[in-house]
């Protein structure tokens, strides 16, 4: 499978991966997260784990099980780590977290591994089973730069027992962390159905199926139906653009059945845009990977106008397809877009409208920025770079032992 990545990263890069992996041969590595399906972490592990095994690093992936009560607590914890919101963690919740952790300790064998990667806060308590000689790494996929103090104190009890932690970018790391902090951005897989090349015909068939006119410029935002993704702001920007440009707005997303807010945002958006013939609000089923791929390839300009964002890999997905992205100057979006070179970073609806207009008006800009956008992703945000970073990290951490 590694060979399939040669067209994207070059044979030399794959050779170097093999060289570094030889230093880690026969090592046993375990990844633990809380789901096999859905979400960016599972998507990355789906690609990463087989590649590590192909490099003869025996790598397993296990899932931490919890029930609704457990996950509603960890969801609250997640939100509190992201930003204080006036909620409190009560002692019952802590006891229940520990109860579920102990139940998982019976199911998840962590003893036979040299390196254990724990993803996000849900399985973090497994660290209590750490054995001498093992190295445990906490991989945090959220922005904890300004956490609620109580939530952080809870987390810190476990964190200090880890050997290192990883954040997407230094901005996401809370300043009280005392263990080594590595910065490894997430990645996309060029072989995933979301990112593979599609024929012109397939792109055309998918897009026109929804009544969208391929002859007219398409402004696209792909995101969950969530206020923090600001689809309403994108629509306001579109109205400013529409005064001079005959174009279409496509807002593609999905909402989970158990997310009442997602459904209400979707309906509100449908209401707001109902009189606009060139606006398409599309709620696609989960796993509509080829459809999303086709929309990104068929778009003229891609937008990601989030008010707050974790890393926002959807930006890299569009950039990988040679699209300039107009994105908000927040979170990981500002790490992916190099302003004025691979797209534009904006701070308002008006800013978004101005930059989208510039790109609609100028094919040369679009092509140049699209070219550089793809180059940026090729070097910084593909799974092979991610894998290489993990291998070096493992090697470095094991070396600390000696």
């Amino acid at each position, binding site marked *: 499978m590694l060979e399939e990545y040669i067209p994207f990263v*070059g044979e*030399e*890069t794959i*050779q*170097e991966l093999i*060289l*570094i992996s030889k230093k880690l041969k026969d090592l046993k590595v375990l990844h633990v997260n809380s789901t096999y399906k859905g979400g960016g972490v599972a998507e990355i592990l789906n690609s990463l784990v087989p590649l590590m095994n192909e490099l003869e690093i025996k790598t397993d992936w296990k899932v931490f099980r919890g029930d609704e009560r457990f996950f509603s607590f960890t969801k609250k914890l997640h939100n509190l780590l992201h930003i204080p919101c006036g909620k409190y963690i009560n002692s019952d919740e802590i006891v229940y977290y520990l109860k579920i952790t102990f139940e998982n300790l019976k199911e998840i064998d962590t003893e036979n591994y040299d390196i254990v990667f724990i993803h996000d806060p849900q399985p973090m308590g497994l660290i209590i089973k750490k054995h001498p000689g093992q190295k445990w790494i906490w991989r945090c996929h959220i922005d904890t730069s300004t956490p609620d103090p109580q939530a952080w104190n809870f987390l810190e009890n476990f964190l200090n027992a880890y050997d290192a932690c990883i*954040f997407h970018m*230094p*901005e996401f*790391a809370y*300043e009280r*962390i005392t263990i*080594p*902090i*590595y*910065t*490894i951005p997430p990645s996309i897989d060029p072989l995933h159905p979301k990112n593979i090349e599609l024929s012109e015909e397939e792109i055309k068939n998918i897009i026109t199926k929804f009544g969208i006119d391929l002859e007219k410029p398409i402004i696209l935002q792909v995101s969950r139906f969530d206020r923090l993704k600001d689809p309403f702001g994108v629509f306001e920007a579109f109205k400013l653009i529409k005064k001079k440009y005959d174009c279409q707005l496509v807002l593609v997303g999905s909402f989970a059945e158990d997310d009442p807010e997602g459904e209400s945002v979707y309906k509100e958006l449908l209401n707001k845009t109902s009189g606009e013939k060139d606006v398409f609000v599309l709620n696609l089923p989960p796993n509509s990977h080829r459809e999303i791929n086709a929309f990104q390839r068929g778009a003229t300009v891609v937008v990601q106008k989030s008010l707050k964002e974790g890393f926002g890999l959807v930006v890299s997905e569009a950039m990988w397809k040679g699209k300039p992205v107009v994105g908000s100057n927040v979170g990981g979006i500002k790490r992916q877009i*190099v302003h004025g*070179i*691979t797209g534009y970073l904006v701070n308002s609806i008006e800013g978004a409208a101005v930059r989208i207009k510039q790109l609609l008006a100028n094919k040369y800009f679009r092509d140049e920025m699209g070219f*550089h956008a793809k*180059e*940026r992703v*090729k*070097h*910084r945000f593909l799974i092979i770079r991610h894998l*290489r*970073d993990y291998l*070096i*990290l493992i*090697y*470095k951490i094991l070396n600390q032992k000696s």
Partner: protein
Amino acid sequence: MSNPFVFKSELWIPRYTGIKVCSLKELIEALKIIDKFSIFYHMYINIFNYHNLPTFYTNSISYWLYKNGYLLLAEKLSVIDPLDYFDLEELRNVLIKTIKENYYENMNEKKGNPFYFITAEREIIESGRIAHTLNEFIEGIKKSSINSLFYHLVTSRIENKTLINDYSAWLFNMGVAKKAEKINKLDLYSRNLYEIKKEIIEILESKEC
């Protein structure tokens, strides 16, 4: 007969030092104490991360200065060619001196976007390729990654404490001085490493000695 050339490569992982600064004064103080490989990361490696893009500045400190409105300082720092230095402590002093020379007390406003000091945890690996002759050397470079080029053109100079890169040093020993000089004069920070690789191969395959 000269020693064979051993092709190596360099991989690294970024580690956050925990030091972030929001003003020029804090920047100067941090530059005095940070790990020298943090200087290496921001002055040398960062350009590697962006080498394939036509970015405005050649190092991340200049870019931060530019984003915060210190345009003069951004230019003064971006003209510092890291390849003029093999001693990271000397480069540290030049950075501090340049900022101090262009710094006034009224420039000490705190900025909203902090600068985060990262350091590089590096690993040098041998590719297993060795060159005894010029032809083997050319073949070796053709098979080299840009990380390998980065190691031999940039890092090796710091490790060996010399202004002459690995490729040129070996070529001098082989008696092909003109090629050695040409390669040593390449401006690595104005083009991407793929173009540099192509140009090195052209120099090596040209008829001149």
